[in-house]
């Protein structure tokens, strides 16, 4: 079985499992929506122009919901003992990492695809343009790349779900800062050229941590 074939098989397995239970998607989406609404109540009385807090709101909602989804990703594998099965399969272990990363990325993108129109309706904004979507895509890739390996670490500890955000958020700061920054700039009317530097930076982040995760994933799942 070649590498990408194996990756594809793992993604397909996750999609089929999710299609049956809809556990991850529903909890992620409802949580993201709730955080946007809670933010709305929290800020409404003090912030004159809600437009100015939407970028932060969007990225925090994505991070919270993403953490929820990442937690489930490996808890499911552990509880049913399927991780052992995956590790026994005759393939490169990096395929497990990339398969799970792509699966997580896909679930997060689906949640964003539903969340984005709702935010646009709630706050009367236009977020549906190529630069906006590119910013979201690259940021979410960074989230999935780092989150997947940390989720594999956290699931093996005593604290489990509690530990993942603690491990994840300090490392994720560059993506959140750049992401919120770029979304804000685009909302303020800056063009694609103005955010190009930031965008390249997030791409660089994605690549660096993807390589690092590829090199270290073996040590995380080793028994």
């Amino acid at each position, binding site marked *: 079985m070649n590498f990408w074939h194996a990756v594809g098989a793992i993604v397909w397995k996750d999609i089929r499992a999710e299609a049956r239970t809809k556990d991850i998607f529903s909890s992620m989406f409802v949580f993201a929506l709730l955080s946007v609404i809670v933010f709305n109540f929290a800020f409404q009385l003090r912030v004159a122009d809600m437009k100015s807090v939407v970028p932060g709101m969007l990225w925090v909602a994505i991070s919270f919901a993403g953490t929820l989804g990442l937690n489930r990703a490996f808890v499911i594998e552990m509880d049913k003992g399927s991780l052992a099965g995956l590790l026994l399969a005759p393939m490169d272990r990096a395929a497990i990492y990339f398969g799970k990363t792509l699966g997580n990325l896909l679930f997060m993108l689906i949640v964003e695809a539903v969340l984005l129109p709702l935010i646009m309706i709630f706050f009367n904004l236009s977020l549906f343009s190529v630069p906006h979507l590119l910013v979201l895509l690259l940021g979410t890739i960074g989230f999935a790349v780092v989150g997947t390996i940390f989720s594999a670490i956290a699931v093996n500890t005593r*604290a489990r779900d509690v530990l993942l955000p603690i491990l994840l958020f300090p*490392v994720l700061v560059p993506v959140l800062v750049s992401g919120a920054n770029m979304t804000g700039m685009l909302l303020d009317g800056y063009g694609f050229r103005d955010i190009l530097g930031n965008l390249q930076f997030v791409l660089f982040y994605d690549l660096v941590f993807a390589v*690092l995760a590829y090199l270290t994933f073996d040590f995380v799942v080793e028994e």
Partner: protein
Amino acid sequence: MQRSEQTLTTLTVIAGLAVLVAAYLALVVAPPALGPSGQNLGPDLTAAQRIIYFHVPSAWVSMLAFAVTMVASIGYLRTGNQRWDIAALSSAEIGIAFTIAVLGSGSVWAKPAWNTWWTWDPRLTTYTIVFLLYVSYFMLRGSMDDPARRARFAAVYGIFAFVSVPITFFSIRWWRTIHPVLFDAQNFGLSSGMKPVFFYCLATFTLLYMVFLLHRMRLEETREEVEELKEQLGY
């Protein structure tokens, strides 16, 4: 064993004396600082400025310590030798202590200089994130019982954490900075009387770090020896 003990004791005494000399040099010998165009800074700021002799070396040592943690983490993943894990753990602990020293001494200086204890300047923000990164590192270590797994996971996190430090710094640098820049390509922001004291303090803190590291590693090794002996004796 006996000889290495003696060396460590000697080093400890030297480091202790060097720190006393550093305090004297920084507080008494070093000339008062002047503003960028040679003007007098006023009594508060002139006194507060002497913090640089402890603040900058502390920052240097904290980064050195976290770099050593990363190198030791890579060493552990490559060899599986437990001594690397002990080095990583010890260095990270010292790094956290010096990070707190940097944040604390910086705040004391910022009050007279910027008229506030804290601002969200890139360097300050980065240091807060660095502090949180290594607090997470210890929370991760604390949440596992199996020593081999703990060492492996901590090593992976130790590498991720240190790689993220410069990336975090550059991501926040898009905000405007007000923190003084000591070194840049053209000039060096210290007068000729201040330089020797500054570099002496830098060297002293580096020595202090090495002594701390050796002591901390020895403590951890002794602790593990005691655990083993306890097991043999059936405690």
